[in-house]
């Protein structure tokens, strides 16, 4: 390492060594400076000038700096490039003796950003720690700005990859911390990075022993025993929680006090959604463009607050299995549905509620200002004005509001209002300050300061008059304090009691003993005011923080109200229906719509019914050409169940939904090249997972399973899987099974619980007309070539394909055998392409004649029409 001789650089190097994985923002006056390697890197990423500082025998030192007041944007940029930043501040006042003390006061990492301007409002920003031992994996997650803190632990095994992946996908942490051991094991690290692309770093906080970790966690939260958190029996979880806590403390360079007590996340409490389900259902982003626009959340989010937005996301991620919870949400939505006026009033008030959780955390993290406190107060006041209205409802969820300590909140609000306030100056500037009347001493000092300043103004005036020097000025600077400045031309007429202090090019500066004595008073007052104001503010902040737990309760209650209003608004505007929640294991949706697509297509969207039960229709085998709407129908079913169990009304005429415990969506075939797995392998891994985990309460969506391999392989596997899903006596999941293999239609005859369905398509003028209607029966034609034509494949290819198809169909091809066996063929028009086109032409002719309006036709016109008809008729025969 490079040695330096100057004290400052020695100090720098000393601090730099303690934070090897960070860029060090080293405060020098009004700038944060980066030195040496940091300077090179920083200049490159930030596009700032790289300079050199000549330091005598130390040689040139590369350096780059950013102004402290605009550091936030630069920090955000560095974080986006995956850097961590250590902020090193001056912690002592500059004086003549040596250099000032400097200390790292905070480390900023992607998961611990405190500047919420660079964060998404309606989304948690999680940092997580993952501990992997021989037998178990544990994940601890925390949002430093909202205080959310939770842990989970599960056994290792064949499904560990899926479980960890699902968990990370659910919460999408922006930063992962692991132990050195995990970090150094490519296999273990691979488990994490496979599903999740975020900053992964290691930290030495995973503890010597579980006991030691336990002590760390219990001490931080001031509880006697770890068992009060509900995960005392999960040692790995304790280790992960401790590592995360210490990591967060490390980044804040203090012991954080505002985090919520950790809770145990038990996936089984909610409907289990595997990772491919979350992705395929496009809950939070579209599967291809990965945009929020087009996702389910985007389509149904009408929340007004950041907290509400976060809660709605969380509700969608944690669909409920508890009927009471779901019904109580429905009850509120229904009440607000029929009372839109009240709901709109709630929403208009909610729209002024600020992000209480983050604001409070900011105070706790000591980065709050008077504005922060005032913002909290404003939001709490809205709560107080909503309180009597909401508690007026005879509804379970609103009755919970009665438990909220409105009185305590009221007192706190009053305290804040009494202590701090905003003033608008004449120039329109907003000044936030400690109010007059809070502290007698402060009032006296402010008075004194005001008189002092007035005295100076008067002094300048009288001196002008006394000396007759009109350009006389009384000014202030930090070196001389107050002084009198007189320009060169008037120097002759200066009074005797002026003491010369400084000579400038065209003026001279003087003081008088009188001026100096007032100066002392003014400066003294000013200094004392600052100290007092800080004291009072800190006291206020302490008081707010003491109320943190109730403030958080209020924030949670407001968020819940917001989400319910939002769901009610959407339900009303789109005429969603209240599903009937049952446990009779029947899923029965009448005229269901895809929540996202129905909004896009409006009346053009075709609703469909779905019925699944244990005995007569456990599996719907759906056939039909590409583009006919099979996938939409199946995903829509999964989405409706998910929405219903999240507590939302759903787009359908009516729905009866028996509670689901898991939703699986095995859809489409996507290569996972980064994982080194083929399309088919991914398919089989996911299918295996489904077959293992599905229960009688599960909903399974299988979209074209077996597509990734050769036809016979594919048919065999698909058949076997379908058979397995309906054969198990104890596990009878509800299954939607879409396939191109028409052979599978024969399953209906063999299993009473399987029914064939088709997506209707009519042929008109040789082209398929998609009816997007799912009806009982089996499709016989896949229209692959017609679809290819729609897609614009070259004509030669299409012609060739048609010939090949013909050969296959008339020969001993697979499809030919199917045709004779499948009983449900109600689609005459699709039989035989030649007859069909003949019929079509006849039909066209018929339509034309029928549509003639003879009373509007002159004889001449009629003759023309007749001629035209004749020509067409000739073509047909």
């Amino acid at each position, binding site marked *: 390492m490079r040695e330096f001789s100057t004290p400052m650089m020695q100090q720098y190097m000393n601090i730099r060594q303690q934070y090897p994985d960070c860029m060090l923002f080293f405060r020098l006056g009004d700038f944060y400076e980066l030195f040496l390697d940091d300077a090179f890197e920083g200049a490159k990423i930030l596009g700032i000038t790289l300079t050199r500082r000549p330091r005598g025998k130390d040689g040139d030192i590369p350096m780059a700096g950013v102004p402290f007041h605009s550091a936030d944007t630069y920090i955000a940029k560095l974080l986006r490039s995956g850097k961590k930043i250590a902020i090193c501040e001056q912690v002592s006042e500059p004086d003549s003796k040596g250099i000032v003390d400097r200390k790292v006061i905070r480390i900023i990492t992607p998961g611990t950003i405190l500047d919420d301007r660079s964060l998404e409002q309606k989304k948690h920003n999680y940092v997580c720690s993952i501990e992997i031992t021989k037998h178990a994996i544990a994940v601890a997650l925390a949002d430093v700005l909202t205080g959310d803190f939770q842990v989970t632990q599960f056994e290792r095994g064949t499904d560990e990859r899926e479980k960890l992946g699902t968990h990370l996908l659910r919460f999408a942490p922006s930063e992962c911390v692991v132990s050195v051991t995990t970090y150094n094991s490519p296999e273990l690290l691979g488990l994490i990075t496979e599903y999740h692309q975020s900053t992964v770093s290691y930290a030495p906080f995973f503890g010597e022993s579980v006991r030691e970790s336990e002590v760390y966690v219990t001490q931080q939260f001031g509880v006697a025993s770890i068992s009060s958190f509900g995960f005392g029996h999960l040692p790995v979880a304790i280790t992960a929680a401790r590592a995360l806590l210490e990591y967060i403390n490390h980044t804040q360079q203090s012991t954080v006090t505002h985090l919520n007590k950790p809770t145990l996340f038990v996936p089984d409490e909610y409907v289990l959604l595997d990772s491919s389900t979350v992705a395929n259902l496009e809950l939070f982003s579209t599967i291809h463009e990965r945009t929020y626009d087009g996702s389910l959340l985007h389509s149904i989010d009408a929340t007004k607050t950041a907290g509400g937005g976060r809660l709605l996301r969380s509700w969608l991620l944690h669909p409920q299995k508890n009927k009471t919870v779901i019904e109580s949400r429905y009850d509120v939505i229904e009440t607000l549905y029929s009372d*839109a006026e009240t709901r709109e*009033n709630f929403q208009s008030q909610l729209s002024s509620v600020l992000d209480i959780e983050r604001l409070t955390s900011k105070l706790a993290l000591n980065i709050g200002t008077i504005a922060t406190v005032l913002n909290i107060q404003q939001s709490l006041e809205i709560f107080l*004005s909503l309180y009597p209205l909401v508690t007026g409802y005879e509804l379970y969820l609103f009755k919970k509001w009665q438990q909220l300590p409105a009185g305590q909140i009221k007192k706190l609000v009053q305290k804040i209002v009494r202590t701090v306030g905003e003033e608008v100056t004449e120039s329109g500037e907003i000044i936030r300050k400690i109010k007059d009347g809070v502290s007698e001493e402060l009032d006296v000092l402010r008075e004194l300061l005001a008189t002092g300043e007035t005295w100076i103004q008067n002094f300048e005036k009288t001196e002008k008059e006394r000396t007759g020097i009109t350009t006389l000025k009384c000014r202030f600077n930090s070196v001389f304090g107050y002084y009198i400045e007189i320009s060169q031309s008037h120097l002759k007429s200066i009074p005797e009691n002026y003491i010369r202090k400084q000579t400038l090019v065209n003026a001279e500066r003087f003081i008088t003993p009188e001026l100096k004595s007032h100066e002392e008073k003014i400066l003294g007052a000013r200094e004392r005011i600052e100290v007092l104001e800080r004291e009072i503010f800190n006291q206020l902040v302490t008081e707010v923080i003491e109320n943190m737990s109730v403030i958080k309760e209020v924030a949670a209650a407001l968020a819940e109200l917001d989400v319910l209003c939002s769901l009610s608004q959407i339900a009303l505007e789109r005429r969603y229906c209240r599903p009937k929640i049952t446990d009779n294991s029947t899923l029965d949706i009448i005229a269901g719509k895809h929540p996202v697509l129905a909004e896009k297509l409006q009346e053009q969207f*075709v609703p469909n019914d779905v019925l699944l039960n244990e005995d007569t229709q456990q599996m719907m085998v759906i056939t039909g050409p590409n583009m006919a709407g099979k996938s939409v129908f199946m995903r829509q079913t999964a989405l409706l169940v998910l929405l219903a169990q999240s507590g939302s009304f759903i787009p359908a005429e009516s729905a009866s939904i028996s509670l689901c415990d898991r939703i699986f969506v095995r859809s489409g075939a996507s290569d996972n090249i980064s994982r080194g797995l083929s399309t088919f392998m991914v398919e089989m891994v996911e299918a295996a997972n489904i077959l293992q985990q599905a229960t009688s309460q599960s909903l399974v969506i299988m979209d074209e399973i077996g597509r990734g391999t050769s036809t016979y392989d594919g048919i065999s596997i698909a058949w076997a899987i379908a058979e397995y899903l309906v054969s198990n006596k104890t596990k009878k999941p509800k299954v939607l099974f879409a396939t191109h293999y028409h052979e599978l239609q024969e399953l209906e005859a063999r299993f009473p619980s399987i029914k064939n369905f088709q997506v*209707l398509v009519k042929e008109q003028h040789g082209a398929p007309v998609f009816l997007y209607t799912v009806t009982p029966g089996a499709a016989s034609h896949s229209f692959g070539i017609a679809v290819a034509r729609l897609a614009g494949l070259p004509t030669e290819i299409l012609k060739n394909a048609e010939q090949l198809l013909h050969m296959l169909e008339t020969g001993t091809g697979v499809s030919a055998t199917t045709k004779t066996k499948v009983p449900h063929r109600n689609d005459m028009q699709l039989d035989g392409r030649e007859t069909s086109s003949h019929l079509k032409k006849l039909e066209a002719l018929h339509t034309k004649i029928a*549509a003639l309006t003879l009373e509007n036709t002159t004889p001449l016109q009629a003759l023309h029409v007749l001629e035209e008809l004749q020509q067409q008729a000739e073509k047909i025969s």
Partner: protein
Amino acid sequence: MNRIQKLSAEVIAQIAAGQVVDRPVSIVKELVENALDADATSIVVKLEDGGKKNIVLVDNGCGMSEEEIKVAIQPHTTSKIRSVADLQSVHTLGFRGEALFSITQAADVYIQSRQRDQQVGTKVVVENGTVKQIIQAGMSVGTVIQVRNLFRNIPARRKFLKSATQEFQLILTTLTQLALAFPRVGFQLHHNGELVFDVLPHTSCDERVRAIIGESIETLFIPISLTVSEFTITGFIGAPQAATTVSQSQYLIVNQRPVTSPRISKTIKRAFKTLLPPGIQPPFVLYITVDPQTVDVNIHPQKREVRFTEEEILLQVLKTLVIQTLEKANLLFTITDVNGLVVEDSKMDAGTAHILREATQLWNVKEFYDDEPILQIDNLYLIAKTKQGALLIDQHAAHERILYEQFLESFLKQKVTQHTIQQPKTIFLPLLESQLLLENADTFTKLGFEFTQQSNTEFLFTRLPALFGTRKIEEYLLEVLQDIRDQIQVPDVDIQSHRTIAYLACRNAIKAGEVLTQTERRNIVTKLAATTSKYTCPHGRPVAIAVTSTDFAKLFYRIPAFRNE
């Protein structure tokens, strides 16, 4: 060459259609009525550019089969009547069998319909009046009709369309009327992608009215209800402060059919007497139910106006009902509404003014004694403490109201007692009015006129009421005769006299800016309380605004602002 030729069938069709389809609103009306007749419980209308570019109507009614659609787009076809006899007892909205055909003549129409027992529906495309395509289509049960490019082929008509905003307003009004008439049906109206009108299916007219009028139904409307043997009247009438210069917010539903009736509007206006200045219309929502045999709905090509066989009785009953309702209601202004109304005073008549000034002893505010302190703000407003809270009074308006009452009293006395012989005056009236004048000679005698008929349309007036000395008698006569023709009771005060009295009251009232003693303030308050209609000044501005304790609580957010107690 023959200059007069028979029009082609196409032109005839277009002209005929033009009577049914003159602008987007008539299309919407026809389509919504069809949907209602198809028993839809949900009707969604989507418009682009006020419907000029695109109209989409989605209903969940019984739907049509392919055959039915094909027939429906032919002229003079309907499922609703079969014979002339049926016309007498029409209970459906549409019945002429012109709607769809007319629309297809004026625009491109895409009809999609599915019956409940069918798996799929039928889509029919009609462009330029001819069927272009008939295919099957997947869809929900019900009907979707899209009307595009209205009057693309009839530029002359296109030119007469108003701006998109105006066309939209017309549609909104029509849809509101229909929504009021059919409370059990849910309606949604989207304009350029935005949901602008949204009502859920309701179980009663009352619920529906409340949903549409909103919060102000509690403060600004008074419920009325009456059942007599021939008919039932229910609904709401707006308080004076809800009145506007346009009659747009007057909704009349007769036997579930939204209609207009100038005579009913006029009757209600009369019932308000001086509570409303001329030219200002009270809003109302009225449901009238009568035997279908006694109402004719087929008098207007767009089915807008109705005629009753027992119209005089109906009007008389209605007027009495409204008057009684207004008398019972507490009409003090509440703080939520202080819209000013301005009425021109230029038509004031100097002669009337002079006589009235002489005849009326001006009430002096200083006559009364002091009682309890009343605040005066800005030397214009008085604040008096009341049991319920506070009363805010405009001193000028209040005094004006008091004086108006006094002048009016004198005026009515003068009118019947004081006759003055004038220079005989010859007046010419139109034939119809002349007949009416003769038929109603008695009424005019009562009012103080004396005249002889010179010829069919020429009358020599020998006596006139003194009050009308300097006025153009023809105007007054025409006004009264018009009322008689409309079978409306001749009002106590004609418009011009009202203006005159109002002017006098205004000029003699204490002004804004006058400092009043405690006694004077007290007098205003006491005297105002004694006037018969103390709620608006003769110009229609509020005289007093009551601020109840509840209002105070709302102002300070002690209770929610939207709950009306």
